[in-house]
């Protein structure tokens, strides 16, 4: 009998179906791996088990008995502990306090029993003593820790639940080799004690090193479970890809040979925070795609080119001249444009009229001093119409528009004075389908007119359908270049999940 079983569990956030149908069964004494691309619903499934998200439908059985998990407390009572992907630590508290956070030992008088707390925490801190690194001790405040050390604390916190079932949602993403090895030793001990582990990672080597079985989840559906011993990475990736591969690539337009191409942007061994030795060139009229899992350096490279993030070494050549990116202002003057996917942070000037949201780049590039509304409106309207933007009047605040239309306003800002190179950093995050369609139609048109475009998208279909070439990022560097018929989802996943 399975220790834990999920049958048809589902969850929707508003209109987003995060989990369509989660079927999963975990045995006692096994490490069960969940794998699936970004946004496929892994964390949602975990949170449902951990009680921090209530499912919309389906059944959960523990030791064969149906249960209802009503909240984190109830999950603990049912014997489920969790490591949260986004961590659940109290920054101002010490490592010890965090480890015992979910179950503080109290004295008879009802006060926190410091001695018991320290003693309990010390056991878990000791587990990682050899690999935790400098500046790590039981009484360090968590906010003073490095990212990997915080992840270790979250691991300790999960272990401290001593629950029969422990979920680890991407516990290794910031850990180094030695830390991962130590963690795996501990997992093996837990297994030997008969405990059940759910383990999520995007690293194929880790999955095959520690897993007993693997369940693939695709677009919110669990599509298959295999014994690790009976499968291989290629087969797992095929499961992740499914039959969708036949749909791509659609954008087979072969581009001109290298001789005839003029490069508008060239990177030579560019390194900086979050990426290393990135080299590529973008030709006039080309759409170069950046692919791979989230946070593998794609955004960092784009932001470095645009002068937002510092460059440590390497060279950027823009329009035939070397270029040292120092700030966005300089980048804009040199003909670069950068559309961020985080429009709330980097794009929308909230509370201000639509007109003012479109014009900043125009002011800069035309060296304007006066803002004549009539003259500006003549420039702004066509740019907005090209994107099929729906808006009441140019004087209305940008906040009066829907998210997709706000993003169109921000994009229009970058296109009103035509740049030479357009950097798109996951530009369609959170916008609806018709807005996406409009956007990509425009992007292709701009490319056809000679603009050089770099497109990072977290949606594989967008990349496969629109990019002429795709650079797959993995661990901060370009793992593979996909061109022509190689631009398949399978190849994309393979390079993305390959061990570093």
């Amino acid at each position, binding site marked *: 009998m399975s220790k834990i079983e999920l049958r048809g569990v589902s969850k929707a956030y508003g209109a987003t179906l995060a989990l369509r149908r989660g079927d999963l069964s975990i045995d006692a004494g096994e490490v069960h791996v969940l794998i699936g691309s970004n946004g496929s619903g892994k964390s949602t499934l975990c949170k449902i088990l951990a009680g921090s998200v209530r499912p919309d439908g389906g059944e959960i059985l523990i030791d064969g008995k149906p249960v209802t998990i009503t909240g984190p407390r109830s999950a603990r009572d049912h014997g489920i502990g969790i490591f949260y992907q986004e961590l659940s630590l109290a920054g101002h508290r010490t490592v010890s306090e965090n480890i015992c956070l979910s179950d503080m030992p109290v004295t008879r008088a009802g006060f926190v029993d410091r001695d018991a707390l320290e003693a309990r925490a010390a056991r878990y801190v000791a587990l990682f003593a050899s690999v935790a690194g400098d500046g790590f001790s039981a009484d360090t405040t968590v906010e003073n820790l490095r990212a990997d050390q915080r992840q270790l604390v979250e691991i300790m916190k999960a272990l401290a639940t001593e629950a029969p079932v422990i979920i680890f949602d991407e516990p290794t993403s910031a850990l180094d080799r030695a830390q991962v090895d130590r963690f795996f030793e501990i997992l093996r001990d837990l297994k030997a004690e008969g405990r059940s582990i759910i383990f999520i990672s995007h690293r194929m080597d880790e999955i095959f090193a520690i897993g007993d079985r693997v369940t693939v989840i695709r677009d919110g559906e669990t599509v298959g479970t295999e014994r690790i011993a009976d499968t291989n990475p290629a087969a797992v990736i095929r499961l992740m890809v499914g039959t969708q591969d036949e749909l791509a690539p659609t954008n087979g337009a072969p581009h001109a040979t290298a001789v005839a191409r003029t490069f508008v942007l060239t990177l030579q061994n560019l390194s900086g925070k979050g990426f290393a030795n990135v080299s590529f060139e973008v030709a006039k009229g080309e759409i170069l795609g950046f692919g791979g899992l989230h946070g593998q350096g794609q955004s960092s490279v784009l932001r470095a080119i645009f002068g937002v993030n510092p460059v440590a070494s390497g060279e950027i050549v823009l329009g035939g001249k070397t270029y040292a990116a120092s700030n*966005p202002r300089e980048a804009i003057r040199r003909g670069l444009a950068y559309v961020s996917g985080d429009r709330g*942070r980097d794009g*929308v000037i*909230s509370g201000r009229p639509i007109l003012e949201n479109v014009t900043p780049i125009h002011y800069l590039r035309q060296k304007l001093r006066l*803002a004549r509304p009539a003259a500006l409106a003549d420039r702004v309207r066509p740019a907005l119409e090209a994107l099929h933007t*729906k808006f009441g009047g140019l004087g209305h605040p940008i906040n009066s528009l829907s998210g997709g239309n706000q993003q169109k306003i921000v994009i229009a800002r970058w296109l009103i004075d035509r740049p030479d190179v357009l950097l798109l950093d996951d530009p369609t995050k959170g916008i609806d389908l018709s807005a996406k369609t409009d956007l990509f139609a425009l992007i292709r048109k701009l490319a056809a007119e000679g603009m050089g475009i770099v497109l990072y998208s977290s949606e594989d279909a967008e990349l496969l359908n629109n990019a002429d070439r795709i650079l797959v990022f993995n661990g901060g560097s370009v793992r593979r270049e996909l061109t022509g018929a190689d631009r398949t989802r399978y190849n994309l996943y393979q390079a993305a999940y390959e061990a570093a």
Partner: protein
Amino acid sequence: MTATTQARPPAPSPVLAFLKQPLVVALALIVALLLLGEALSPGFASAQQILRLLIVAALLGIVAAGQNLVILGGREGIDLSVGGVISLSAIIAGNVMNGADSGILPAIVACIIAGGLIGLFNGLGVTLLRIPPLVMTLGMLGVLQGLLVVVRNGIPSGLAAPGLSQFVTRPFLLGLPGIIWLWVAIGLLMAFMLTRTVYGHRIYAIGSNEQAAYMAGVPVKAVRISLFMLSGVFAAIAGICLLGYSGSSFANVGEQYMLPSIIAVVFGGTPLAGGKGGYTGTMAGALLLVILQGILTTVHIDESGRQMVFGATLLLLMLFYGRGRAMRG
């Protein structure tokens, strides 16, 4: 994630929205307060008295123009040093002109340079050293106060030139003295600058979303420094006018303008968070405060009592706008 593709209609009832506009509220209050003043002490709303109120409002309004700009620029922008700048400027002007009309121009130049420099220091501290504006300008206020004590021991307080006094107190055009016209001109200039110039749009941009403005090529630091400089310059101009109003400069004349300059801005519809609002409202706010001050004086509430009332007003305003935001959001 299904974003609606239609623009939402702006506000449900235009009449209600109009009545709720801070500017309308302020103007209604101005009339109400004038009537109240007249009721409490007949003659309060006489032409003579109103003219006097207008002059004081102009003084406050000029200081508040700079305060307004700094606050609009966001990132907790505020200039507490204006009081010190006003006092210093009054002393410099008094000593440079020392009762002679020929000294007016040099005095103006000297004061504007001094105000601009102080603003520059504020701006540099806030942008380059990343000192919070509240702390930076409060520190600057302390420095200026110390400086004033030192200066005062060494040199006389100085005398206003007759021309300056006339500019501030004697009718010049349509029965109104020059300072009122100066204030009107500043009002027009500010409105033009904020709505029709690239610089104005950049001020709103950094006040509303500094990161987005930076990404769009706005020289965020330069703009912010310039705002503090403008605030220093406006305070310096107010200092000169204040000298003209009182004839000679006396200790810490400027101090009592600091808090009201902030209240005028907030009352005029510019939230302390910045990024929206404008100067027209601030002008109404300045008028209102001066009338309120007049009423308080009429009913024999002394300076400390007035400051208490102002402080309480500011808190009330914050509450009012805070709730408004919560209801809208």
